[in-house]
């Protein structure tokens, strides 16, 4: 093979310079997101493993612990617990996107492709934003599959499609916020392996010391405020409420985020995005020059 130099197409001129607009930022991010989605399609293992864990959790909690955890307003009822549980599993699942984002970005930073991106006149941060967009799409797919599995073990939507959509919206927003934490982790470690562990380890205490699996009323007194102010708990309670999965006599703990879970969920997610996106973009720029 040779490089045929006779057919030289006249290359398009580089567009005129100028500041990078929000529009370009969005466009570049979508280009990078497409690239990451193509990669995910070609390495489907990661999506498959992303599904196995939440499905395992559904089965374990529903059938192993189910009958032994009491729900305020419903007592020790396995079927009530299964309904109660799903909000927690959904929320925990979306936060696992953190590890995927962390590993993906750590890998990109290690590979030569990052030099290509950095030598192009693209929006700063689009490499990271594109990755978080792709993870958001992946999270949405995983949520759909998980909802089907949950349906099979007896979980139901009781409050109509609109509030169910709002619940999925809150979950996706939380998952999206957590991918920015993942982005920062991915930029802070040297290998994708470290990024995966770094993206996961703290999720377990965070999701367990919350109202996800056990009502805070069942926890020792000193732990209750931690669980109730946990950003994660607000989303869990909000989606339970929106899906109509709370027992009729359920009374939320008397703290602000538990009394206004949907609003608290949105505020927490927005706050996380604001903080971690800023830190990650700044770190990306510093790490690369």
């Amino acid at each position, binding site marked *: 093979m040779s490089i045929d130099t006779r057919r030289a197409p006249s290359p398009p001129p*580089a567009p005129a310079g100028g500041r990078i607009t929000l529009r370009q930022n969005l466009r570049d991010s979508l280009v990078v997101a497409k690239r990451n989605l193509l990669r995910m399609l070609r390495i489907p293992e990661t999506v498959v493993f992303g599904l196995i864990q939440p499905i395992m959790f559904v089965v374990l909690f529903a059938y192993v612990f189910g009958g032994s955890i009491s729900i305020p307003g419903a007592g020790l009822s396995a079927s009530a617990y299964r309904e109660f549980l799903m909000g927690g599993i959904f929320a925990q699942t979306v936060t696992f996107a953190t590890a995927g984002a962390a590993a993906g970005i750590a890998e990109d930073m290690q590979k030569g492709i990052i*030099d*290509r991106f950095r030598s192009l006149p693209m929006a700063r941060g689009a490499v990271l934003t594109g990755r978080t967009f792709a993870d958001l799409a992946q999270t949405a797919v995983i949520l759909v599959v998980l909802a089907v599995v949950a349906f099979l073990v007896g979980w139901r939507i009781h409050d109509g499609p609109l509030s169910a959509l709002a619940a999925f919206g809150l979950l996706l927003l939380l998952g999206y916020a957590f991918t920015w934490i993942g982005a920062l982790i991915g930029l802070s470690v040297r290998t994708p392996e470290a990024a995966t562990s770094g993206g996961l380890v703290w999720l377990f205490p965070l999701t367990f010391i919350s109202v996800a699996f056990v009502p805070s009323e069942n926890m020792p007194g000193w732990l209750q405020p931690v669980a109730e102010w946990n950003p994660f708990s607000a989303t869990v309670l909000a989606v339970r409420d929106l899906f109509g999965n709370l027992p009729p006599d359920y009374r939320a703990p008397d703290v602000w985020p538990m009394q206004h879970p949907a609003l608290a969920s949105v505020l927490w997610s927005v706050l996380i995005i604001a903080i971690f996106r800023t830190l990650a973009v700044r770190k990306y720029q510093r790490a690369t020059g």
Partner: protein
Amino acid sequence: MPGAIYAEGLVKTFGDVRALDGVDFDVPEGTVLGLLGPNGAGKTTAVRVLTTLLRADSGRAEVAGLDVATQPNEVRRAIGLSGQFAAVDDYLTGRENLQMVGQLYQLPAREAKARAGDLLERFNLADAGDRTARTYSGGMRRRLDLAASLVVSPPVMFMDEPTTGLDPHNRQALWELIKELVAGGTTLLLTTQYLEEADHLADTIAVVDHGQVIARGTSDELKTRSGGDVIELVVHDRERIPEAQDILRRLGEGEPGLVAHTRRLTVPATGGAKLLAEVIRELDGRAIEIDDIGLRRPTLDDVFISLTGHSAEFDELNGAGNGNGGRDGGRDDGREKPPRGPDPGRPDPGSPGPGRTGEGPVRDDGREGGAA
């Protein structure tokens, strides 16, 4: 007015290593600068600073009249980069890679797509265009990366060892392409380890070593400084090397260089074939057996020997150069430097006793270390 690529006093350190130690150059528009230097010289670091991938500790650089430190994004619109290691996405096809790069150069999607198709054809990757890049051979990846650097036709191009890994045919084709680009007004900075390549493509050559430009000029100027043709011979018997060296010192036009472990001696010889015959007669007269002898054009290594007094690759070499490298041996910058060539006439420290093959501390860049 500074040229299309302009650098002034660039310094970049990595811990103790001064990868760039005050580099200057000025490349007029539409010309090619060849950066020539051994492993670890600082070529890639220079390219990375100029392409905004790395921020210099001090110094100033402009590309297409734009400051790389303060106007990185404007610089990126004006450059194309093909780095030392192919920067392509393994899980994307060749076409998807090029399309993505086109879109990130802000071409409309349709134009990026058309351009990707053209480039695949042009780089003879059309057949492989819809396979993921991880199935590509080394040379194909290299070509895909080069294609990516040409998605738009930027006024300034950087190519870091562009022909490494290309077969002779593709290398030739790339040379043609480069000439075509330059004829069209592109300014190019290219790094290479091969004098021949720099010779062929570059208008000016800057020889880099230890982060400094130790010589610059056209290839003819450099070759003249390195003494033109070179006689190279391999002595059969290790013990006879000093005698052979004496002969070369007497007949040749400079201090002979030695690569101890291959028993290879070189000496500048502008006298050409006549001098070669003389050397052979003399060696024969003393019954010094040789495995190989010949006259050849100077190589990068010869340029290095004459400029620095040490070989690009082998520091056990004891050729004393004219030492005009501009490096002062007494400077303490924390970086280990190989010793400069010994004074002519001083006993040769690298002179091999039987079995000595010049082992020593090997630095990370593969060169043998010595105290500064």
